[in-house]
């Protein structure tokens, strides 16, 4: 991946697409400081993100999900989402041990917020089910709810639609709309063209580590360079 740069505007759903091996995941990991870039930097609201330790990123408002979901298997859905709120809560070891009143209050608030977020992504009735027992499609939505628990300003989704059937993809799209309407900016790395064209306000196309196009879905759909990248050189000529 070399000198890829693009901007993400507040309240927007931005998609990043590109054939396999185009560097989407690497870009994603660099944006969330899980990987270090050789050069260049990731700015968020003006301040430098690249150097930070990964667990501090979410405190500056960037939350993420993973290509293969990293859920807490033997914790219930609610507990997973409550864990997501770690960055925005304060109860420490000793305060919790003594069950100080404010920690009990904070617990109550976090539990309610978690229930709300679960409903937001449509997992209302799975609240007390351990993550391990949840079907694949719903686990992705759970991870999104968990990421939201950190009240991020930008939500980065790593192929959220992978492995989802039609109904689950629709549910995902509706959830994304609800999240964006609440004012959270979303950057989604995705293969599912149907979903991308449907939900995104703007699309960035990567190929072999370079940005080859950026713009609204309508333009990107017809851009020959993009088609060539996707369908490989020869087929493009026959079109």
């Amino acid at each position, binding site marked *: 991946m070399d000198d890829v740069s693009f901007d993400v505007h507040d309240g927007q759903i931005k998609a990043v697409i590109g054939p396999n091996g185009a560097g989407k*995941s690497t870009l994603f*990991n660099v944006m969330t400081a*899980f*990987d270090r870039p050789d050069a260049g930097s990731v700015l968020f609201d003006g301040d430098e993100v690249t150097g930070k330790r990964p667990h501090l990123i979410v405190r500056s408002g960037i939350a993420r999900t*993973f290509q293969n979901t990293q859920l807490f298997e033997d914790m219930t859905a609610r507990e997973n989402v409550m864990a997501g709120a770690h960055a925005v809560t304060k109860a420490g070891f000793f305060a919790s041990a003594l069950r100080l009143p404010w920690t009990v209050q904070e617990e109550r608030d976090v539990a309610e917020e978690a229930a709300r977020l679960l409903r937001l992504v449509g997992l209302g009735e799975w609240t007390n089910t351990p993550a391990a027992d949840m079907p694949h499609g719903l686990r992705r939505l759970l991870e999104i709810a968990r990421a939201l628990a950190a009240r991020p300003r930008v939500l980065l989704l790593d192929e959220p639609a992978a492995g989802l059937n039609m109904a689950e993809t629709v549910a995902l799209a509706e959830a994304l709309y609800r999240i964006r309407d609440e004012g959270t900016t979303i950057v989604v790395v995705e293969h599912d063209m149907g979903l991308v064209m449907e939900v995104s306000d703007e699309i960035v196309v990567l190929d072999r580590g370079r940005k080859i196009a950026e713009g609204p879905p309508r333009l990107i759909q017809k851009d020959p360079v993009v088609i060539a990248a996707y369908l490989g050189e020869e087929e493009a000529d026959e079109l």
Partner: protein
Amino acid sequence: MGAVELLQFALAGLKNGAIYALVALGFTLVYAATGAINFAQGEFYMLGGMLSVWAYAGLGLPLPLAGLVGVAMTALVGGVFELLAVRPRKDGDLLAIIIITVGGSMVLSSAARHLFGPLEKALPAFTSTGTVSIFGAVLEIQSLWILGLTTLAVVALWYLYNRTSLGRAMRACAVNRDAARLVGIDPRRIVTVSFMLAAALGALAGLAVTPLTQTAFDVGPSVGIKGFAAAILGGLGNPIAAVAGGIVLGMLESMSIAFISSTYKDAIALVVLLGVLFWRPQGIFGASRREKV
């Protein structure tokens, strides 16, 4: 510190190292097959000596045959233990297997005490109690047997791993059990075989050492720890690394006696081992596994 003395320390380190290496090989085998650490490996070392003494003194078999019987029976014990206690654990959870082997080591050492009594037992040397001198330094001939048997074990294991279908199956299982199952390998059988081989290797070490140090029902744990440390020092999973780890540990102990003091030899060897671990968290020869995001 003359050259002869230095060589003498080195030979002693090599001899102890060969013992730790054989036991470490047993750890590596079980690790490769199950990913778990077999805490009963020390007991297999003990049983190798005890059962050989029983075959020699009890059954009156000539020494070589008694040794063979001792090692074979220990391998059998290893197999039966795996079948009865490890295999029923369907999910193959690492920690559960480790704790099962902890329970197994208690049962095996207590059974040995009940069967053979609490007192130590001896075996005559394989050939002669004589010694051989190498540039002035001296090595018991029995020690040559230990070094010889260790080399033999390593070569046999290398041959098994690389030149036999069983060996390939074992390596396949070590890499990915499910994939191995897909190509018709039964991982459960491989685990049983690995336990039997590990038991045989531990028993071999016990048998080779008994003429020098005798054996008793409780010699397992102390040598077991050394074998585990050697396997970790070298890097888990790779037989050659286990042997190297054993030799390095033996040398470390011998040299710390030579240059510092015998009182702290174990502590010094462990401090160095921890230093290696903190510097290379997967052992000297272990391949580092970066977790893919």
